């Protein structure tokens, strides 16, 4: 399984090369990888899908933190893996034709394959941390794919919006997952899934659940985070079809489904997921009917589907989970097909809006036929698989233990408008009066048609073979989501019952609504006003706010005045050190002992103090340098007096060289001028004295405090026996702590080279 995940990244690295060698058939060649993966996953259908086995594989990654590269293939993972690799095959092939001749086509392949690998990693991960890593990888690849046309500003903004929303959710998710791992005592899903009782009764259950839900909602575009998804349609159509309908946006749903056995089944779970999902479902389909852009309608109907899935997982009954898996499969098939059809319309006619299309059926009969089939599934019409899923959904909603009334109302209303959307997609472009388009339409080439044809056909076949679909594919997935096998059997025909009647009613009402589509759009124009205060506005405002805040903060902190930087740093130092000294005042005794002073020491100290005063107060550069020399030599004397001959010698030599250096440079700078007014000088002097006082206090308190024995004892004892040296200071420098000294001489060399470079560059500047 590791290979299955990594192969995507490996092939992605080769993709630009393949593209360059085979610009025309590169898409087909690269599509071989998803095809191979699909076959590999399909080969597990009997063991995992039919017999319900669970494959586990694990590699050590960061064992000290309990993080493994653990993979798990059960029914749910298999369903997703098949969708990802299967649809991925058509998408890559489609992209080869759709963007033929595009400058950055090679990059598109790279990103698509990277995305596919990340998504596979996400659904196969058995470890929460690796799951999160792959989760973020899908966010990043999605960002790069939405911003694929990076020359266009709206595309860049949409990409950024999607990234911010999903990554902000990712942050919440990470917190939630880490908390989950700590509460559950393991980061392995296989262990967490068996600890439902302990997890749901834990005090941190609500925060964990809410954090994870925020992550899942942002990814799966649930209200109030739904707004990024329609904007993400700035991506090239194959990308929209793949990421933003069939796979990535389902990652949130996947996570909720995956954790259902561990965290689900509580009232909080049902309330949050069920209600938010139902509302998202209704809002999505409502906005879909209000839109006219082809991809926008599809995007909003994807929001509706994701809402439906969240709602069903929220309800959490066996029936609801069955419905969720069926709906998931149905939606991926028909929505993938429809998006690809939208791409064909764009590619063949140049139209991006339903109002600009009509009567295309004559020119593109095959496309029209299969678009119709997919739309029937979207509308939930017998005998398509979408019908099966919708019937199950009605059944589950009517059977819901909580909020059944609200959910059912919203579900029926959504179903009505869902039929309208299906009619818009399945009828509007193909029939009726011929609308003049930018390009004259032709039937699409095979690479573009393959996806819609196969996916739409599957919608039909799986519907006809509903019981087999369950026993081979869905059953194991439902078991994985439920945590235990489910008895409910799926079939196409349930007899005449309440769900069927609701379906029939919604079909009739939906078609009626389609007839009055234009009227409906005009009648609901008031909604645009609401959008002004909607979540998207809040997002825009907060992004602006953050930008302004950081600009303000940069102006305040990075103002270019060294003085103010110093004031902030030093002020904080004084406060931090001072408060600590104050807090521990009872444990600190200040050392006040002048008894051991000798006369010559007092003289040296007096000379040092007056030289310092001189250096500060003088208005002549020469006397400033002279007093620096005096300070240096006095310090050298201090070293010599207090048993540090090496330091004394070094200091004297350095002092000599410093004077030479200052003479060479300083006198080529202008004289001192008084630049600051007196009150500023006083302010600076106050701060400087405060720093000095802090340092003095610190030293007085430190010198009476010993927490542990000095390492010096070891150096003193071992210097002669082990290192054959009698000058312990030198032995430390060249033997005990050689690596430190090596670092220090490297710093010296760097300083010298820096000086050389600055002087040389100046010479070159003058030459030019």
């Amino acid at each position: 399984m590791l290979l299955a995940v990594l192969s995507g990244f490996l092939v992605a690295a080769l993709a630009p090369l393949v593209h360059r060698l085979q610009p025309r058939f590169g898409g087909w060649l690269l599509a071989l990888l998803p095809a191979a993966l699909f076959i590999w996953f399909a080969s597990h259908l009997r063991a995992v899908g039919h017999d319900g086995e669970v494959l586990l594989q694990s590699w050590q990654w960061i064992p000290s933190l309990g993080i493994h590269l653990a993979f798990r293939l059960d029914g749910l993972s298999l369903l997703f893996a098949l969708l990802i690799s299967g649809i991925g095959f058509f998408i890559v092939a489609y992209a080869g034709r759709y963007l033929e001749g595009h400058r950055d086509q090679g990059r598109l392949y790279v990103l698509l394959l990277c995305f596919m690998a990340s998504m596979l990693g996400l659904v196969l991960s058995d470890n929460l941390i690796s799951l999160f890593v792959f989760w973020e990888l899908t966010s990043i690849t999605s960002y790069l794919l939405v911003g694929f046309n990076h020359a266009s500003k709206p595309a860049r903004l949409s990409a950024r919006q999607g990234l911010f929303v999903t990554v902000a959710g990712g942050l919440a998710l990470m917190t939630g997952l880490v908390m989950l791992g700590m509460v559950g005592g393991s980061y392995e899903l296989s262990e967490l899934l068996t600890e439902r009782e302990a997890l749901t009764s834990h005090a941190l259950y609500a925060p964990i659940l809410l954090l994870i839900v925020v992550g899942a909602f942002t990814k799966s575009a649930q209200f109030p985070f739904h707004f990024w998804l329609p904007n993400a349609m700035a991506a090239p159509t194959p990308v929209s079809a793949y990421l933003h309908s069939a796979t990535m946006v389902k990652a949130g749903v996947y996570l909720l489904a995956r954790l259902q056995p561990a965290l689900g089944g509580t009232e909080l779970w049902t309330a949050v997921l069920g209600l938010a999902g139902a509302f998202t479902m209704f809002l999505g389909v409502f906005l879909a009917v209000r839109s006219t852009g082809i991809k926008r309608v599809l995007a909003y109907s994807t929001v509706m589907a994701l809402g439906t899935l969240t709602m069903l997982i929220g309800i959490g009954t066996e029936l609801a989970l069955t419905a969720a898996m069926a709906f998931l499969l149905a939606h991926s098939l028909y929505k993938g097909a429809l998006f690809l059809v939208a791409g064909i319309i764009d590619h063949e006619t140049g139209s991006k809006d339903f109002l600009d299309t009509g009567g295309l059926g004559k020119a593109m009969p095959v496309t029209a036929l299969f678009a119709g089939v997919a739309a029937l599934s979207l509308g939930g019409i017998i005998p398509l698989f979408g019908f099966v899923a919708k019937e199950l959904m009605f059944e589950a909603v009517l059977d819901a233990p909580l909020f059944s009334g609200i959910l059912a109302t919203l579900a029926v209303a959504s179903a009505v408008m869902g039929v309208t959307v299906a009619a818009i997609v399945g009828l509007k472009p193909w029939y009726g009066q011929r609308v003049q388009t930018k390009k004259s339409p032709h039937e699409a080439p095979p690479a573009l048609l393959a996806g819609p044809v196969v996916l739409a056909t599957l919608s039909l076949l799986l519907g006809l073979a509903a019981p087999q679909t369950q026993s081979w594919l869905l059953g194991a997935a439902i078991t994985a989501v439920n945590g235990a096998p489910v008895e409910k059997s799926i079939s196409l025909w349930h007899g005449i019952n309440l769900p069927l009647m609701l379906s029939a009613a919604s079909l009739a009402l939906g078609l009626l609504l389609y007839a009055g589509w234009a009227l409906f759009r005009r009648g609901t124009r008031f909604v645009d006003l609401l959008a002004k205060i909607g979540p998207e506005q809040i997002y825009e405002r907060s992004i602006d706010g953050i930008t302004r805040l950081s600009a303000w903060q940069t102006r305040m902190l990075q103002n270019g005045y060294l003085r103010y930087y110093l004031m902030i740093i030093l002020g904080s130092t004084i406060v931090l050190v001072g408060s600590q000294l104050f807090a521990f005042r009872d444990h600190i005794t200040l050392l006040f002992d002048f008894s051991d002073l000798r006369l010559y020491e007092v003289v040296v100290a007096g000379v040092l103090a007056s030289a310092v005063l001189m250096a500060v107060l003088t208005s002549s550069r020469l006397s400033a340098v002279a007093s620096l020399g005096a300070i240096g030599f006095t310090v050298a004397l201090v070293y010599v007096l207090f048993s540090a001959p090496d330091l004394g010698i070094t200091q004297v030599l350095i002092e000599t060289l410093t004077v030479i250096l200052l003479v060479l440079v300083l006198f080529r700078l202008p004289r001192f001028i008084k630049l600051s007014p007196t009150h500023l000088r006083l302010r600076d002097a106050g701060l400087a004295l405060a720093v000095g006082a802090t340092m003095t206090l610190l030293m007085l308190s430190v010198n009476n405090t010993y927490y542990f024995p000095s390492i010096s004892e070891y150096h003193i004892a071992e210097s002669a026996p082990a290192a054959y040296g009698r000058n312990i200071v030198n032995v430390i420098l060249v033997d005990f702590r050689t690596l430190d000294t090596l670092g220090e001489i490297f710093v010296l060399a760097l300083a010298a080279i820096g000086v050389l470079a600055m002087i040389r560059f100046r010479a070159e500047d003058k030459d030019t």
Partner: protein
Amino acid sequence: MITLMSFLVGGLYAAAIYMIMRRSIVKLVIGLVLLSNAANLLIFTSAGMTREAPPLIPYGALAPEGAVADPLAQALILTAIVIGFGVLAFAVVLIHRAYEIVQADDMDQMKDTDT
């Protein structure tokens, strides 16, 4: 002596900070020199000040007789002195370069990076 040195080092720090906060770049350089002296003396004082007992071992012996001054602090300071010189040279040349370009001895006129 430690008490007296603590006050001296405090004074050195105060002088160094005051000089660094001046607008004149030459004063900034002087402040840097003061600051490195202050830091060295801080470490030296904190290691305890021992008279007439350098960390040397007499010829033929394996260990010094009696207690000696802390050699580790001295090793630290020795490299710090030399590096301090390197950094000072770098700073001085950098300041000189900046002065040549900006033609001003005023830190406030160097706050823009676009010149």
